[in-house]
Each structure stands twice: as structure tokens, then as C-alpha cells.
């Protein structure tokens, strides 16, 4: 199993899991977001990730605060509401060796952040983009976000007047190469998906249902723990095998799909009932849409395309991070300026 580190209680870098921790969380007790932070810590620990190569990016919201609570050894930027995609893109192109781990909320992404989210998907810069989706604005005390289902009333009984946005459906429509959905209460599924996302060279999007225990966890809510547990339907049973591990899970042919990721690691998807092909974009949209109308919430690896080229690769950029270049590389010579001047003379 990929979750077994090289030596007990330390990973291949010889680090304990606690060394991937952060400040104490200030989320409400039971908040789904904390579970996601734990999953991130688990994934980073299992991968033996060097925190210095990760940058934690977020917008504004309870969810966007969580980067303070994991991987304290990594730099991070808690930016402005809904604009994290642009900051992350800028940071990554400035230093291509830094992999942004973006944490956002449904309000931060689907409401104010929609414009930047759409263009981030198009641009396909390498990044892991997590939406901690609770259907409400937690930090401002429970107003509906754009992912709130019309059928899901607020605590006071009011209903959303507009259609909910399915962020995975949107990501598929916009050509995203890595689209997954999971549940903060389901580490067994979330951790391998996170690891795969971190191994993917492009924009890896994960919509994680993450109940807000304070404002949106009541009976009638469709974003509550109970609702999600009852309506969660898995595509497959995912296993991640890192490049430094050897595949020791045995499986019968046809039963499992083996997706080879950019860094040589593998995502093994064991078929559950129906055989679902996560490389067929149309099937993907159709299936999640149908399941939505059936009231199911499909989770798992919805779609993956490892052939897409990421922004930096398509830009013929130097391997050295731009941020590391100094005067000799950055400032052209006197003769270069002289040549330019010649053109402005006559």
C-alpha cells in the first residue's frame, strides 16, 4: 500500500507526519475543512514532499484560512477574495519549481472568483486547486454561495433562487485536464486523489464537499455530512502508487485502470459496479449530470488527460526559475542597447 512509509513513523525524507503540520486550526470543531487539511498533511507526508517546493495559495474565507494550519514549512500567500488564481499563476511562472497548492471556497471560487477560475482552467498552469465546498459563505455567517442547491434551504428555511453551479461540470466544459470530486469525510478517497493531483503537470481541480457544521449541516441541507454519506457514489476505488514505490497491489485485468502520471507515479482505479472511463470528457459530463438529477453525488477521479501541456511547458521558458535570474542574465549588454539605438537613429 502506498500509505506505508519507508521506515515507521518517518517518510522517505526521514520526516515525521507532524513535521508537515501547521498552526492550530481556528475552524469550528467538526468543520469539514479541518479534515481536508489532515488529508493534505497525510498526502504530503506519504509523498515525502519537500515543503520548500510547495507554495500554499488561498483567497478569503474559512477555507482560505486553512493553509495556516498545514505544512508550516512551506511559504504561502493568503491573497484577496476570489483572486487567488492570478496570484498563484504569477508565483508559478516566476518560479516554475514552486508547485502551488491552492485552497479556495465555493464562495471564493464560484461567486466572486468565477472569472479567474474559468481562465485558470483555460490557462492550465501547473497547480492543485482545491475547492472546500460547503454551499455557504462560512466566514460571513452562512449566506448561500453559488454552489448551493435550490433544494437545499438555509437554517432559517429560505431557498436559493438561482441554479447551483457544478464546478466539475464547468471544469469539464472548459477543458480542464484533471477533474475530481471528493468528500472531506472520506480520506481513503481524498488522499490518493490529492497525491495524484500533486503528481499532475497541469491544473488539477478537486471539488471537495466539506460540510459547514455551523451554518449548513442541518437536516434539509444537501451539503451536510449525513446527506453526503447517504448520496455519495464512488466511480472507482482509487489507489496511488508513488514513483518510488513498486506496484504491489494485485488486481485482475479489466478490473482496474492504471493511469500513469507525469512524475512516473500511478493512479490505480479499481472498478466498482459499472465500468467508468475517466478519459472520456463527454461521458464524464453526461454521467455527473445524470447522477445529479438522480440526487447522487458522484465522487472520485471524474476525468483525467495526461496529454495536455501545461502553461510553462508551452511557453518555451528557461528551466532556471525567473526569480533566480540575476543581472548578468537579466540586463542586456551595452552593445545590445547600442544596437537598439541604431534602429532609432535613422
Amino acid at each position, binding site marked *: 500500500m502506498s500509505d506505508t512509509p519507508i521506515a515507521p513513523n518517518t517518510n522517505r525524507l526521514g520526516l515525521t507526519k507532524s513535521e508537515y503540520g501547521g498552526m492550530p486550526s481556528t475552524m469550528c470543531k467538526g468543520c469539514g475543512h479541518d479534515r481536508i487539511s489532515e488529508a493534505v498533511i497525510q498526502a504530503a507526508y506519504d509523498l515525502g514532499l519537500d515543503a520548500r517546493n510547495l507554495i500554499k495559495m488561498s483567497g478569503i474565507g474559512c477555507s482560505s484560512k486553512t493553509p495556516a494550519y498545514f505544512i508550516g*514549512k512551506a511559504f504561502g500567500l493568503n491573497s484577496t477574495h476570489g483572486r487567488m488564481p492570478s496570484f498563484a499563476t504569477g508565483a508559478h511562472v516566476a518560479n516554475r519549481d514552486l508547485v502551488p497548492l491552492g485552497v479556495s471556497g465555493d464562495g471564493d471560487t464560484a461567486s466572486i472568483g468565477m472569472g479567474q477560475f474559468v481562465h485558470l482552467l483555460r490557462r492550465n498552469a501547473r497547480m492543485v486547486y482545491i475547492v472546500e465546498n460547503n454551499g455557504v459563505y462560512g466566514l460571513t455567517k452562512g449566506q448561500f454561495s453559488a454552489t448551493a442547491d435550490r433544494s437545499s434551504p438555509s437554517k432559517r428555511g429560505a431557498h436559493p433562487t438561482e441554479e447551483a453551479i457544478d464546478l466539475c461540470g464547468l471544469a469539464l466544459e472548459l477543458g480542464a485536464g484533471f477533474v475530481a470530486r471528493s468528500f472531506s469525510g472520506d480520506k481513503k478517497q481524498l488522499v490518493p486523489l490529492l497525491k495524484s493531483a500533486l503528481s499532475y503537470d497541469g491544473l488539477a481541480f478537486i471539488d471537495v464537499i466539506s460540510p459547514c457544521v455551523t451554518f449548513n449541516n442541518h437536516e434539509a441541507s444537501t451539503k451536510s455530512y449525513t446527506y453526503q454519506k447517504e448520496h455519495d457514489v464512488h466511480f472507482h476505488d482509487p489507489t496511488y502508487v508513488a514513483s518510488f514505490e513498486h506496484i504491489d497491489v494485485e488486481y485482475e485485468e479489466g478490473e482496474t485502470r492504471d493511469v500513469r502520471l507525469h512524475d512516473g507515479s500511478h493512479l490505480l482505479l479499481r472498478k466498482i459496479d459499472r465500468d467508468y472511463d475517466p478519459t472520456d470528457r463527454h461521458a464524464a459530463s453526461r454521467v455527473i449530470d445524470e447522477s445529479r438529477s438522480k440526487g447522487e453525488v458522484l465522487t472520485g477521479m471524474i476525468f483525467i488527460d495526461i496529454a495536455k501541456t501545461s502553461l510553462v511547458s508551452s511557453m518555451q521558458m528557461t528551466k532556471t526559475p525567473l526569480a533566480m535570474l540575476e543581472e548578468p542574465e537579466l540586463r542586456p549588454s551595452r552593445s545590445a542597447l547600442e544596437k537598439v539605438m541604431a534602429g532609432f537613429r535613422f
Partner: protein
Amino acid sequence: MPDSIVNDFSLRIATPNGTGSQTSNLIIFRALFHMGLAPSSKNLFPSNIAGLPTWYQIRVSPEGWQARRENWQVLLPLNPVTLAADLAECAPGTVVIDNADMKGVEESIFEGFIRYPVPFDQIARDGISDAKLRPKLRNLIYVGVVAELFGIPEASLRASIESVFSKKKAVADINFEAAMLGATYAREHLQKKDPYRLTSAEQTAGKILIEGNDATALGCVFGGCSVVAWYPITPASSVAEFLIGHFARVREKDADGANRYIVVQAEDELAAVGMAIGAGWAGARSMTSTSGPGVSLMSENLGLAYFAEIPVVVFDIQRVGPSTGLPTRTQQSDLLQVAFQSHGDTRFPMIFPTDPKEAFEFSCAAFNLAEHYQTPIFVMSDLDLGMNLWVSDELEYPEAPIDRGKLATDEVLAKSAEWGRYLDIDGDGVPYRTVPHKTTDPRTAHLTRGSGHDEQGRYSENPEVYARNLDRLARKIDGTVDRLPAPIAHAGEGSGLGIIAFGTTDHAVREARAGMDSLVPYLRVRSWPFHASVADFVRNHERVVVIEQNQQGQLAQLLRIAFPELAPRIDSARYYGGLPLSAAFVRDAIEERMVKA
């Protein structure tokens, strides 16, 4: 009228936009430059791609003044739509070269002018066989007429045409021939009746022809900028567009021929500045260029850069506001907005270039400033500087080395026992900046945030901590005057009236002063916050008039805030019609006040 006026008049060409006349105008302009003259060009174009009226004004003067001359001595009213209005604006005795083939034109409207009617249509029909090329080539005919009438040597004309069509010899040839059609016609049919003449001169030694935005772009390349995020907007677009070209040509590639820069066209200005700030945070020199509407959209993200202390350079190529205003006209009206934009107590240092040379130098310097002070730096250019072609001194190789400012390197950290991203170790309010991968010291990793934070960058709601941070930021911004471009004083007579100006206004001011009997002392401000010497200048005069291109007297207001004890002496004279400022306006403003004084 003297029977000969040499190298001292201006020429106004009225055409419909998008008909190719710009090329002809450029050819005339460059031909003059080739003659050794330092002409000025003002392109008064509409916010439209084709059809609306446009005017191009070319001026020659013995001193090579670059400011707009309010009146013109020669007019080519080639746009039927504006013909009457164009003539109505002319003083009697103006030389008028009109299209004799224009239908339904009252002869009478030409009365009182020195008229040279030219049958452009017919000349084109007879002389240009290829009907497909004719519409564009016919514009060359007036070039030839002007050359012949005022004396542009054929050599200069040919040189100009060849330079405009650079490599394309064949194209140059047919254009030259078309021009010759006009020259020939003029020689054979027009009898010189006016005093205006052009002769070769020595005004262009060490000079170049360049647009301000082009110089700004070059400054970014030599300033070490490597990340550009932009969104198209007039008059700023060409900064990024020139930059793409210069990067490709002069920013040295790596061993594999790969690029050492990236230019991203963002989806809007919020994203453009967000990317630039993100890049600055990660340690690259980054910039975005825009104009008023874009700045308005950037203000929230810029507040984050200010408070989290992230370097970024923003170029505001100002146009006429408010709102969409006049996108193709010039103003200096974004100062108050930029200085205090974004909610809360913020200040954004501004630099004011006046010509292409400074556009280059300041753009280059802005990156050092942004990284040293870890704050957004605004370079306040405008449409007049940015999009017009200027005769400028050659750009000089930057003396100052690239200075990344106070970086938290392992050496620095080894020395400092106590460490904090926002700790004021040197007492100048400027902390040590962290860049991922620039140090291995684990203490430096932190979550940068726009919310309240202590010296270690940790979240804090403590009132003292918050106030202390705001005070340090204020000290830091006050301190920027140590490195911001200092004002330039032009001595003058007396301590009565003094002039203050900035940016492109300088050209009209210098010309106006030169033309006056008593030389009024003049201080050109080149940045905000203001240097102490600005206060000294005001203190040394009973009255100071700030000449600026906005309605509210924005720089005057910043001066009154900065030097309250001197506020009563600060007056302002303002032009805000959107045309480049003229010396005449400045002269009137000064004389009016001298009378009063």
C-alpha cells in the same frame, strides 16, 4: 509677414482615420528628421478604428520644441467631413493645400488663405495604374506636394520612405513614385506664394526618434523585469506589445535558446495585477501596464501588495477620465486616485517621466525601487508621451546595478538572531524580504497575508501591534524620497512667482519660459512623496503656480497636504481638454499671475 520663414512653422493634416494617411504623415515627419531637424509630432486621433476624423500635427522650430503648437501655418484639409470646420479654425493667411477634386465645395470658404488646390483624385487616377493599391498610395501624393512646396530634399524623402518600409525595397519604390507624382504636379502647376521653407539643420546630433511607450518597454528589459501580465487598453497596450518585441530581440536566451521572461495576456486588470504581484511575491521582477480604468480595477489587489509588502511596478499611461472618458486623448488626472487608492491608510509612490529618456530611466529604476521598498511603484506616464513619436536624447545604459533590495539570504539570517518578515531591523521601516528558494533558513517560511500581522507575519488582532505596523509602513513610504528621482530646479529671476510642473507638462513650460522676457523660476517635480527641496522651493517664493493637465489641480492638492504650512501660497493652472499642452497656455497662465502679483 516676412517673405521667408525658415524651419519655424507647423503643418496640420486632416484625414479620416484608418485610411493609411498615418504612413504618409510619418514619412513627412521622418524626412524632416533626416534633414537634421527635430520636429515634433502630435497625433490627434479618435477612439475608433476607421472613419472618424483624425489630425496629425507636425511642427518644426529652431529650438526643436516638442510641445504642441496651438496654431498652424499650413493646413491639409483632406477630410471632406471636417473641411469647413478645419478652415474655420485657421487664421487668415494660413497656407491651405486642398483636394481640388472634392465635390460641392464653395470656393468662398478658401478666401483669405494662401491656397494651393491639388486635384489629388485625378493625379491618382492618371498616375497610379493599380486600382487595388491606389487608395493607399494616393496618400503619398500629398507627401510629394509638401516636399516640393516647402523644400524637403528628394534624398531625405527617399531615405524616409525606405526606413518606413524598411526591408521591402519594392514597396518603398512604388511609394516613392507615388510621392513623386505630387512633387511633379507641384513643380509644374503650383506657384510658391507663401514664406514657409525648410532647410537642413544640425538639431539631431545624438538624437533618436522614439515613442514613449517604446522607451518604457526598453526600460523594463534593462531593468530586469521578467514577468509581464497585462490587459489591452489604449494608450497602454503598446508598452506590452513593444516589450514582447524587445524581449525577443535583446533579452539574452539561455543555452537551449529558451526565454528568460514571460508575458501573459490576462483576462482583465484584476488578474493582470494579481499575476504581477504573485510573481513579485515569488521573487521575479514583474510589472503590469494599464490606464485609468485598469488602475481602478486593480485597487483592491494593490492594497494587498501595499500591506503585505510585495514589490510590483505599475505603469499608468494616463488618458482622459473620468470613466471611459476620451481613450485617445491625454491628461494627468489619475494622481489622487493612485496616491490614495485602495481602502484604509495606504500611499503609493509615483514617478513622473517627462520624455522618452526618462521613460526609459524611470522604468528601469522603478524595479529597484519596488524591490528595495517592497511596495507597488507607479510610473505615471500619459498618452502624449506614450503614443507620440518624440525626438529624444539617446537612451543611456543604466549606471545603477540591479538591486534586489534587502533580501533574507542565509548570510543576513546568520547575522540576525531575532528574525521576522516584518521586523524593522535597520530602523528605516524597511524589513527583509523573503523569496522562496533564496534561503534555506526554515524560519523564513510563513503565510503572507493581507490581514493584521505581527513582526513575524503571524495573524494578530492586537491593537498595539496593528498601530505599530501602520506606523512602520508610514516611515517606510516617507523614506522612499531617499531613492525616488529628485526634483530638477531651473533657476530664474526673483522670489515672487515660481512654477511647478511634472511629466509631459515640462515641454510647454520650458518653451513658455524661454519665450518670456523675465525668466520665472521653475521646479520640475519627478516623484511623490515629495522631497524636502520641493518645500524649500515653495518657501522661497511668495506664490507658486502648479501647471497641470487635470481639472482639480491634483498635484497642487498633494502639495497642500504634504506642506500644510505652505498651502496658502500654492496655486494651480489647469488644462484638461485632452490635447497635449501648449506653451501658449502656460505663458497666459504665468502672465496672468505676474500681473496679479
